[in-house]
């Protein structure tokens, strides 16, 4: 995956080089200009947080398609809380996160207790929350305008810390924490175990229903955090389009990062790189002045190429593993113990 990422990066440098001349590109690439880098890392941060959230449910073998609609619904509610209703911002944030967690709990219970398919449950969410957002706001765009009283939130979404965009820093923190949770904690091991074989996990005494439910709650609460950041980033929320398709950016980032939609696979590093690749792609499309209506064509194409490449490389890796496997097999009736 890293190799593909670098290839993409280099490919882009060459593309730019072919237009402006290699020397000029390397001397002063637009792409590597400070403004663009800030822009790029900010969007990586904004999209990364909920991609990691998506990763946790994908690892259990589930999916959450309602993310984008949750952005719209939570964004609208947040705008009301901070705008006309004049809630203090910490309370508003708490309400938003709590609401998000309730939605996650609802999804999680439907998946783990009622045994509905995650795709179906969250697809209904995708439709319902979007509709609810439009209804609450009477389909009007509402914004935070230049209201004051919550500068900290605005800084977290649009400001910088140590010359780095604040969302990117937040994303790094989320990655660090979730990296430990997924890769070193008991809970993380349970998530992978369930993703690989839920029944065997149950037979090993894992409370699979609780773990699956909690994965949806965790996913939704990070989604709630993202909803606040993205709301402030756009500063106004058009309920019909705000955040639409964002869940698919997250799924794409996870898939590019090595998650399997069958569950049980994937890593934080992978999701980080996956998110970076997708944002890089959008950035390139932008900078190249490619017609923005073609953006999805380019992205779809590149993701497909990357995943296919990974499949080919992966097949080779599996072949190597099988070789080890076969080697292990005859070693198994060890001659020493035979007589």
């Amino acid at each position, binding site marked *: 995956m890293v190799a593909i990422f670098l290839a993409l990066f280099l490919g882009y440098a060459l593309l730019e080089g072919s237009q402006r001349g290699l020397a000029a590109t390397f001397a002063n690439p637009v792409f590597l200009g400070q403004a663009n880098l800030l822009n790029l890392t900010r969007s990586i941060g904004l999209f990364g947080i909920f991609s990691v959230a998506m990763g946790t449910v994908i690892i259990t073998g589930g999916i959450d398609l309602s993310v984008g609609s949750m952005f719209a619904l939570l964004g609208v509610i947040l705008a009301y809380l901070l705008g006309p209703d004049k809630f203090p911002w910490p309370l508003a944030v708490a309400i938003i996160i709590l609401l998000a967690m309730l939605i996650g709990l609802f999804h999680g219970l439907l998946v783990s207790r009622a045994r509905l398919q995650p795709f179906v449950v969250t697809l209904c969410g995708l439709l319902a929350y979007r509709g609810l957002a439009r209804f609450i706001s009477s389909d009007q765009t509402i914004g935070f305008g230049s209201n004051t009283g919550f500068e900290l939130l605005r800084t977290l979404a649009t400001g910088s810390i140590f010359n780095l965009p604040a969302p990117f820093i937040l994303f790094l923190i989320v990655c660090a924490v979730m990296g*430990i949770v997924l890769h*070193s*904690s*008991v*809970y993380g*091991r*349970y998530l*992978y*175990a369930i993703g*690989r*074989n839920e*029944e*065997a*996990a*149950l*037979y*090993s*005494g*894992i*409370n699979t229903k609780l773990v699956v439910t909690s994965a949806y709650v965790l996913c939704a609460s990070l989604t709630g955090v993202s909803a606040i950041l993205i709301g402030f980033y756009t500063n106004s929320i058009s309920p019909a389009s705000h955040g639409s398709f964002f869940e698919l950016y997250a799924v794409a980032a996870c898939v590019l990062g090595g998650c399997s939609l069958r569950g*049980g696979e994937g890593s934080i590093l992978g999701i980080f790189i996956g998110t970076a690749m997708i944002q890089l792609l959008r950035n390139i499309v932008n900078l190249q002045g490619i017609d923005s209506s073609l953006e999805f064509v380019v992205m779809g194409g590149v993701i497909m190429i990357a995943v296919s490449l990974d499949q080919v490389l992966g097949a080779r890796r599996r072949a190597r*593993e099988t*070789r*080890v*496997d*076969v*080697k*292990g*097999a*005859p*070693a*198994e*009736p*060890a*001659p020493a*113990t*035979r*007589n």
Partner: protein
Amino acid sequence: MPEPILELKGISKRFPGVVALSDVHLSVSPGEVVALIGENGAGKSTLMKILGGVYQADEGSIRVDGRDVKIRHVADAQKLGVSLIHQELNNLDNLDIGGNIFLGREPLSGGFLRLVDRKKIAEQSRGYLAKVGLNLPPWTPLSALSIAQQQLVEIAKALSTNARIIVMDEPTSSLTLTEANRLFSLIAELKSAGVSVIYISHRLMEVNACADRVVGLRDGKNSGQLPKSEINHESMVRLMVGRNIDLKRTETHLGDPKKRIEFREIISPFFPSHSISLDIRQGEVLGLAGLVGAGRSELAMTVFGITRPLGGEIVVDGKAVQVRSPHDAIAHGIYLVPEDRRKHGLIISMALRENVTLPDLWRYASFGVISYGSELRTAEEQRKKLSIKTSSCETLAKNLSGGNQQKLVLAKWLSLSPKLIIFDEPTRGVDVGSKAEIYRLMRSLAENGVFILMISSDMEEVLGVSDRIAVMREGALTGVLEAKDFSEEAVMRLAVAPVHAKEGRQMPGQAIH
């Protein structure tokens, strides 16, 4: 000696890094039943896959009817009259019987529409079904059939391709004794019709019952053969492992008679009209016999908390314990070694280490973060103790052989503090060497005060390993045999007794008439 119908000469097959077969010979006469025996990994399946066209041999020749042939595809094998019946059945259970028999060779009608001619399928299927003794209409959906009946469908399919050589790979691994006997009489019929059978099995008693000649494979080489007169248990074990294995029962040392585990009127939701009361004494291995579908695994699942009981309680040393989930069961030291280890026992795409520590992961963690070192120590300890043959604790469970996978399932539980271990078909698909090790382990656990309940459909195993045998039928306990009353007949009497009316209910297909 008649001209052999099939001769494999000097077959060698190398996979990268390993020689799977070297210079293997096998010849089969028309109407002969040749048993091919050997431990897991001895090369039986590879040899049969070469015969069936799945693999190509690197060296050696295959002769059918005295003529050299090349088998490059499965279709080539079929044309030559070779048919493989795999261990895992390859039937499609969303089709009906006829559809399975003629899969890929469906008679067509309707001209260019190329419709499947169901009438013709039904007509032609009937003949083959009659031959294998399966009296069901060809349009019976496969999903309504028992595994034994599905097996008969596979054989009917083989006959429909005019097979003259049928290879059966562990055909009885999921059959009950009566079903297996039916299979043997079918093999005898095939034989008298001139069809040759290559029979692969770990169950030596069966080989004894049906083979005309036994050919042994060991580490990819011929290890000898036995004519009919010399086929017996010891000689076959020698052929497979090159040494004798003593399966004789050691003396039982019963522990404190007050220490016992009692199931008091446990009602599993699968059989709500029957309750099971059973006690297990310390120091003994209690066998649980019965036909497939007798409710033994269901009882195990209920005791282990996979399904909640409708009533009853488990009493450990006089104290009743509540089991609502496997988590509870494990907390009380009640463990299950499930029948299907790849599906329930292990997470096969995880490493040995991760599988061992999974049931009690919190023990290896501080503040929820797992310590790799302490995990590895336990895993390593268990690997050595159970002599799981692999190079490291990071080997994925799926890359272990059947016997070693079963030991890994045990390692999971032995790293905790077991009170009661329920073994559900502990040696299914396990080679003879590992089998003996698993028996020894059960015995030593029992001697160390662990209560052992062993569910088994293998008569040899039930009679050879248990100290007492409980027998179930259709969700009810029909009796408990003491060691002095052990015999195959006694067990079968309890397992099937109220004759065919009850047995018929297990074969839903028959209800259709």
